């Protein structure tokens, strides 16, 4: 179902035939909020394409503009510049003065607060989009019933939203979004008000629904686990910009900036200076010499750089398979039990790295250990290290 693996980074325009197959095309979108406190750039020249039945997650820290981008696609917010196409139709263009109102755009939306109408039954809530599309009461109610059965709420047709649990309410919102079959659903942190268990279950159900019905989704979250689990592609956002777009494993294993590497998953970070650049890059760090590859732009020998690698890619030298070239010596400071895994903090008081191992017990604090990390897993980013 995922046919597109292309992506555009902010600023780079998309050309040619790609346009036709995209469900949503966002081009050079900018938006600035002007308040009494001053201007705030919420979106800065953002471009992104979403395939016909692709699940794209917008991931980023609070306040980076995810909701703003989503609401611009919805038509609930008006960008200052740029273009938005849905199904190849121009729904917004600042240049041509086009701004199609939300009710005329082919999509539906699931809100963080569920936004169910408390004065209507669950069935009427779901039937509402169909009634607006001109469907007769009976037929609309029937389709609503089917949609509700699909999300497992067939027994609650006559209930009022206030009588349902949070998880059930979000299912109703989901049914309301899929019922009219628009082919595009926008989600703004739909699971963030639910507890962890319900969230996991709904995540699976959502994926099941998507593969069954086949809609495109733009899904906003600041939860990286959710993003990695759901996404065909993830767009990682920094303040107002899209930092990187890629599949979950691309984002996780090949982050192209320190920001993405740091934001998605956890990362060990060591400052250093580049000593040689060849097939691999060698960097001197306070904990020892490290070898890896450039994550972002390559830089010359002598430049400051950050070395980044993930805790779960590290091993201790007393374990089998530790044949990586990178070896870091340190002292175990403490070990934390995390259930499925064990986290060991290694280093000196002022410079530490974390090693995550599944299995094995805690290590005695004070033990001298050697940590190794495969060269292929080490990514080097140019940047000021403050030295």
């Amino acid at each position, binding site marked *: 179902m995922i046919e597109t693996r292309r992506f555009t980074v902010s600023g780079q325009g998309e050309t040619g035939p790609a346009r036709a197959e995209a469900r949503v095309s966002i081009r050079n979108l900018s938006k600035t909020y002007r308040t009494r406190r001053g201007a705030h750039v919420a979106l800065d020249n953002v471009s992104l394409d979403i395939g016909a039945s692709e699940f794209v997650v917008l991931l980023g820290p609070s306040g980076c503009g995810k909701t703003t981008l989503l609401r611009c696609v919805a038509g609930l917010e008006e960008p200052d510049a740029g273009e938005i196409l849905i199904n190849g139709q121009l729904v917004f263009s600042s*240049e041509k*003065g086009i701004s199609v*109102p939300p*009710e005329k755009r082919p999509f539906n939306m699931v809100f963080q607060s569920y936004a169910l109408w*408390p004065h209507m039954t669950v069935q009427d809530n779901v039937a509402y989009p169909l009634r607006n599309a001109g469907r007769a009461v009976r037929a609309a109610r029937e389709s609503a019933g089917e949609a509700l059965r699909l999300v497992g709420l067939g027994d609650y047709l006559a209930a009022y939203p*206030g009588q349902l649990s949070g998880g059930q309410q979000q299912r109703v919102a989901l049914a309301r979004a899929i019922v009219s079959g628009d082919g595009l659903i926008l989600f703004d942190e739909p699971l963030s008000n639910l507890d962890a268990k319900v969230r996991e279950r709904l995540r699976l159900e959502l994926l099941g629904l998507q593969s069954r019905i086949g809609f495109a989704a733009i899904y906003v979250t600041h939860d990286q686990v959710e993003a990695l689990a759901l996404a065909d592609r993830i767009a990682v956002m920094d303040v107002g910009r899209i930092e990187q777009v890629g599949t979950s494993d691309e984002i996780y294993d090949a982050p192209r900036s320190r920001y993405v590497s740091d934001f998605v998953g956890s990362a060990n970070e060591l400052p250093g200076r580049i000593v040689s650049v060849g097939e691999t890059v060698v960097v001197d760090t306070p904990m020892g010499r490290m070898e890896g590859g450039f994550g972002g732009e390559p830089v010359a020998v002598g430049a400051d750089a950050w070395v980044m690698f993930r805790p779960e890619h590290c091993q201790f030298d007393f374990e089998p398979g530790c044949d990586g070239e990178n070896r870091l010596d340190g002292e175990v400071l403490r070990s934390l039990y995390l259930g499925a895994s064990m986290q060991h903090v290694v280093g000196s008081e002022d410079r530490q790295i974390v090693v995550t191992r599944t299995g094995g017990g805690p290590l005695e604090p004070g033990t001298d250990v050697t940590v190794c990390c495969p060269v292929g897993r080490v990514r080097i980013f140019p940047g000021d290290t403050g030295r």
Partner: protein
Amino acid sequence: MSAIDHGAVSGTSLSRLRARLQRTSPFTLLLWGVLLFISVGLILYPLVTALVYEAGNVAEGFMSLTTGELSRRVPEVILNTVIVVAGATALAVVIGSALAWANERSDASLGFVGQLLPLAALIVPPIAGVIGWAVLLDPRVGLLNYFLRWLVSPLGLGLREGPFNIYTMTGLIVTTGLYTVPYVYLVMSAALQRLDPSVEEASRVNGASPLRTMLRVTFPAIKPALAASILLGAISGISLFSVPAVLGAGARVDVISVYIYRLLSDYPAQTGPALVLALGMLIVVQMMLIGQHLLVKKGQNAAISGRGFRGTKVRLGGFRHVVRGLAVFYLVLTAVLPILGLLLVSLQPFWTPAINVATLTLDNFRFVLFENNQTVEALRNSMGLGVAVATFNMLVTGAIALHLGKHGAARRFADSLTGLPATIPHTVIGVAFILAFSREPLRIYGTTAILLLAYVVMTITYAARAAASAADSISAELGEASRVSKASDFRTLWRILLPLALPGLVAGWIMVFVHTVGEVTASAFLSGTHNPVIGRVLLDFWNFGNFPQVAAMALVITLISSTLVGLMLFVTRRAHKVTVS
């Protein structure tokens, strides 16, 4: 859509504005049209027309007020007004803020009484309350005075009059103050609710006594609210008509609103001086508003944040009961006693303090409700106008508040338009309406239409505030969810927002209705024998000395008002339950 010519339209702000206008739905345009009609047609037009047509008289009137025949009376009238307004406002601010503080910050929380307090002036329309007090405290035949004389008669003082006389400056001040308390109470308790008690607790922790905390911390923090309530009291005091109209003649104290009325209703009408005084009134009020803006600088509200604080309350100990007792006493003064007085007088064939159970009769009620043309027609007119005005205003302001959303320049502009009438004394509206609408092209003086228009202007601020609070409690996402479900603007309004805001809108409707039915000022100016309304007929009957009938009629409107206010409490409480559960 791709048919749009690429080259012709550039991304200039002008073309964006035009695009925006084209996208504005007809419904939005209609709403702006109605707003414009109210602010231009019903405020600007009367004022300007009155000024233009009376331009000659204005100069003459000014001369006559400053150096001419009126110049001897006017300073006294102005002085009286200042005394009454200052006295009444001071009284109201002291009582109102003390009660608000007791309810919000002490353990003497007033419960149901606290809920009724701000509604006191709605439960008993001030005109009914004043008449009630007049029949209680008339020096000779006042029922309460008679009762007090009877109490002290064993002492052998042989009083023939008093001990109280309501027809005095003091009587005027106290009665006016009594019916200003609810406004102060509302403003002050809202401010206290928003003030984080931790600020006060910090002061207590640092060793300040409760009293010192109140004076040094609480009071400065709510100073803006205090200024606002003083202003509110002063504005309503300046234009208050019912109290001086009922008591002023007996007390030989003329205040400006009554004086203006007299200038217009005496023969020959002196329109010039009346207009000059009305304009003066308008200018004074506007200057007070500007002064408030300048005095209350931004940032003084810094201590006021968030909502829903639950701080420890100041313990009053045994004094708690005294405070509660005072709150109840206030309700007794504004509602219970006047109603009792009205009841006793209305059941008698003629007003006498010596009540004879054998002669009690319902004749007066039969007279005002069925027999007398003027009263029957006045009741019918007032009710009809109340329904029409409340429905119209709530529809308009409700649609505006719901449709224009919570934020944005459009809503702010609409709010300032609907808030405008509150800054114009009713007397000014009355004068401007008389002068502007008794000539072509809109000769509607003497019809119910002119009353309808006047009431619409005068109550639209109440309506807008009620509608805003009803609409703003609805989360924006509920409306947006409807829009993304492909509902048109109107359908979103009708199917989603309106049903959700309905309890608040009903409460607002009731408030506007009650205000309209109990309105006296514009009624005195604009109503006559062809278009009688309750306020006007009450005043006429009072001046002609038909006291039992006045009492009966005042009781009837009190009954209507209090029933509706009770209904309002019920509706809003139920709505609260629904949203909480």
